[in-house]
Each structure stands twice: as structure tokens, then as C-alpha cells.
């Protein structure tokens, strides 16, 4: 059982380049999320989606874009990469709930360096 799969695992980008971080889940979860993890800062929500075709901003959305064309996939795009976007990126998914409190299942992350 794959769970949440993120690709690539590592990437080095030059300033100004763009790339797409891929995320796929096979648990038929409606909700999907993108977080970034910086040392000593915990994880911060970038974007989230409550279903195909529906996305919304999280706490730190600037410099990123997302799309959700299928239930399974939730790619994160970086346009014009900047050094401040050097981080570890985590994708997660969960079942939906009207009241919150469903466990989120995380992938193993993409480690991105921008030089």
C-alpha cells in the first residue's frame, strides 16, 4: 500500500527556475495539503484542497501554485524559484469531515535547495 507518494525526493534548482513537485495518494482521500518544513519552525500550510477542482490558500502561499484535477493528484508548482523557498515540502491527505479531526497521512517529503 503506497499511501502518499511524493516525487522527486531531492532537487536542486537555480534561482529563477521553475518546477513542479508531484504528490499522489491512493487512499481515495478528498482532502489534500501541502506543507513546508523549515528548521525550528514546524510545518506551515501552503495550500490545501477539499476535492477535485477546489483549492485554497494556507498560511504561506506566496510563490506557489496548485491544481487539483483528480482526487489522486495534487501537484505544487514553484514559479521563479527563490532562495527563501529552500525547504522540505510535505504533501498530506485525509478523509473529509465537517468538524475536523481526521488524521492526515504524510508523504516522505521533497528536499528542495535553491542556489
Amino acid at each position, binding site marked *: 500500500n503506497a499511501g502518499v507518494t511524493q516525487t522527486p525526493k531531492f532537487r536542486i534548482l537555480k534561482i529563477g527556475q521553475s518546477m513542479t513537485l508531484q504528490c499522489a495518494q491512493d487512499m481515495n482521500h478528498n482532502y489534500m*495539503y501541502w506543507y513546508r518544513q523549515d528548521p525550528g519552525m*514546524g510545518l506551515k500550510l501552503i495550500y*490545501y484542497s477539499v476535492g477535485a477542482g477546489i483549492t485554497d490558500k494556507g498560511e504561506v502561499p506566496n510563490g506557489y501554485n496548485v491544481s487539483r484535477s483528480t482526487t489522486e493528484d495534487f501537484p505544487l508548482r514553484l514559479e521563479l524559484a527563490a532562495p527563501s523557498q529552500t525547504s522540505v515540502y510535505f504533501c498530506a491527505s485525509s478523509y473529509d469531515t465537517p468538524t475536523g479531526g*481526521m488524521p492526515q497521512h504524510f508523504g516522505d*517529503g521533497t528536499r528542495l535547495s535553491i542556489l
Partner: protein
Amino acid sequence: QQQVKQSPQSLIVQKGGISIINCAYENTAFDYFPWYQQFPGKGPALLIAIRPDVSEKKEGRFTISFNKSAKQFSLHIMDSQPGDSATYFCAAVEYGNKLVFGAGTILRVKS
């Protein structure tokens, strides 16, 4: 501005000892408080969680204590083992099942 404040940043405990990690929050709209465990190179994984209408929840060696009036909650790891060495995050859930994380505590259990 951190909505969930976690302490300590790091913790060293002897094998068999009790590990205690504390968190505090401000937003009274939070209604679910999970703890996640993260090993190096891996994503966080849910460890244990509590709702604010319960003051304590225990699962094996892991216990959450919750003080709604003080807006504080804590994780206690009894009989800590070297395999418990990891980073622990407290979190709070707001609308849309969105997680707000604390900054994390790096736990090292010495054998």
C-alpha cells in the same frame, strides 16, 4: 506569530524515564489536538490525539493531558525507549481539517 507554542526545543531523557513536552494555544476555535511523531527522512505520522472535552487520553506509553481553561496540553511518554528518539510536533486543527503545528521538540532517549 505562532498560534501553537511548543516547548522544549530539545529534550534528553534516560531510558526508562518520562519525557514531557508542552504546548499552548490561543485560538479557542481549535477543536482537535493531535501529536505527530517524525523520524529523520520521513514525514510526520499521527501518534495520539485528543478533543477538548476530554482531560486525558492514554494509548500505551503515550498520554495526552489537556487543560482547556489554561489552553495548554502536553504529551507524556512513559518508560521512554531509544526507539522513541524522534521529533515530536503538537498541532491544533481548525476549519477544513487544517493543521497548525508547533515548532517541534527533538527527543533523544539515552540507553
